């Protein structure tokens, strides 16, 4: 009973702050995913390209990003680069998150393109389509569809990873929880509430991507249930 009471107390007192923080979390994730997706497309293209130099660049980028912790990347961009250019915390955070997810997204796109059967490219080429036309009209649409589930997964990871920007003083959900907890000394209830916020965002997002996936899946016959 106490627990419920405390939770309602937190929501009453800090509801507005959490709502504002939700917006910050969603927008920093959104901006980072936007850039991350662009970066992902570019570097997937580099990796698929027949130009060795571009392959190499993509390898190096993915290697460095995957090989170092996100928190280090965030700190590096915010504090480390501060001596050259000063970025506000939101921009630095969004940039770090974008560069970070970009590496994973590029691997998702590359994997999806390479998973398309060789015969598709051969069929397209045998009809007189050029390499780039075949890519654009035949390979990419199929690869995009195939990349939706892992992409959705990556988006969810990014949303939760965005909590690390609290350490460069972006007032996101997690940072709000830190300061609320510092006031009320109720870590159990406070972190429970903030966890709930993340959970609800992820569930809503999952619901949307499931619908998108079903909608995109036009070429499959209607689902068959096997008893």
């Amino acid at each position, binding site marked *: 009973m106490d627990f419920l009471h405390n939770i309602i107390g937190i929501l009453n007192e800090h509801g507005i702050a959490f709502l504002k923080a939700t917006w910050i979390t969603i927008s920093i994730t959104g901006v980072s995913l936007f850039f991350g997706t662009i970066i992902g497309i570019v570097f997937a293209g580099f990796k698929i390209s027949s130009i060795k130099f571009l392959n190499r660049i993509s390898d190096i980028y993915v290697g460095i990003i995957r090989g170092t912790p996100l928190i280090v990347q965030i700190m590096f961009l915010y504090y480390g680069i501060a001596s050259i250019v000063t970025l506000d915390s939101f921009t630095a955070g969004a940039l770090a998150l974008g560069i970070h997810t970009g590496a994973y997204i590029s691997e998702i796109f590359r994997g999806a393109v390479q998973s398309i059967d060789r015969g598709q490219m*051969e*069929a*397209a080429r*045998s*009809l*007189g*389509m050029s390499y780039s*036309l075949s890519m654009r009209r035949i390979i990419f649409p199929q690869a995009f*569809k195939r990349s939706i589930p892992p992409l959705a997964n990556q988006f969810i990871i990014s949303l939760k990873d965005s909590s690390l920007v609290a350490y460069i003083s972006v007032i996101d959900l997690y940072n709000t929880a830190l300061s609320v907890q510092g006031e009320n000394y109720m870590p159990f209830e406070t972190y429970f509430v903030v966890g709930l916020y993340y959970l609800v965002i992820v569930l809503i997002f999952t619901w949307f991507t499931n619908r998108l996936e079903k909608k995109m899946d036009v070429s499959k016959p209607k689902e068959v249930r096997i008893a």
Partner: protein
Amino acid sequence: MIEITNLSKSFGPLNVLKSIDLKIKEQEVVVLIGASGSGKSTLLRCLNFLEVAENGEISIDSEKVISQKTNLNKVREKVGMVFQHFNLFPHKTVLENIIEAPIFVRGENKEEAREKARILLKKVGLQDKAHFYPDQLSGGQKQRVAIARALAMEPKVMLFDEPTSALDPELVGEVLQVMKELAREGMTMVIVTHEMGFAREVADRVVMLADGNIIEEGHPEDIFTNPKHERTQRFLNQLL
């Protein structure tokens, strides 16, 4: 129509084709036979430049093709190809599969391309499947769509790479029927197949390959009833 001179091709250390010479006349139906690994599929794929041969020359429609200089996309427009595994585009309907290349490669307008596609679908007996997706079709139907798709580019030659090998036995007939029809209309065809009955009935010439060489060729009656080469005899015996 097609003239192959001294063609050879290796995959790494493996010499798949060794100095192949072959002429195919207009309206001729040539069936390539041979054990797996004999190079028949590779030869077919070289004709479409899906494999690029290291040595030798290929002329198609009296135009010499030099892979570095010739626009291969233009050559491929003249050469239709049907694959063992159909390779239909799964994200497009039957109709969209057929009109894709005519619209985006030849620049036909949509209406014209659709009209032509409908005529082709009728020809392969699938006029009622225009708006189906490939996954909703049987193997035989898929292969017939693939034939219609290749024909939509109005090719001068049609290549068939084991077009019935991936089909259930009861679906083989419908595909062969369409191919017979094509042959009767005078399409130049090069076919890799294990359907010897079909080869006997439709082929003008049968070419036997072994280890990357043409070891025997001739009229199907002669090859099937009176094979000269010992390896042809062995190959045909194994099939019966």
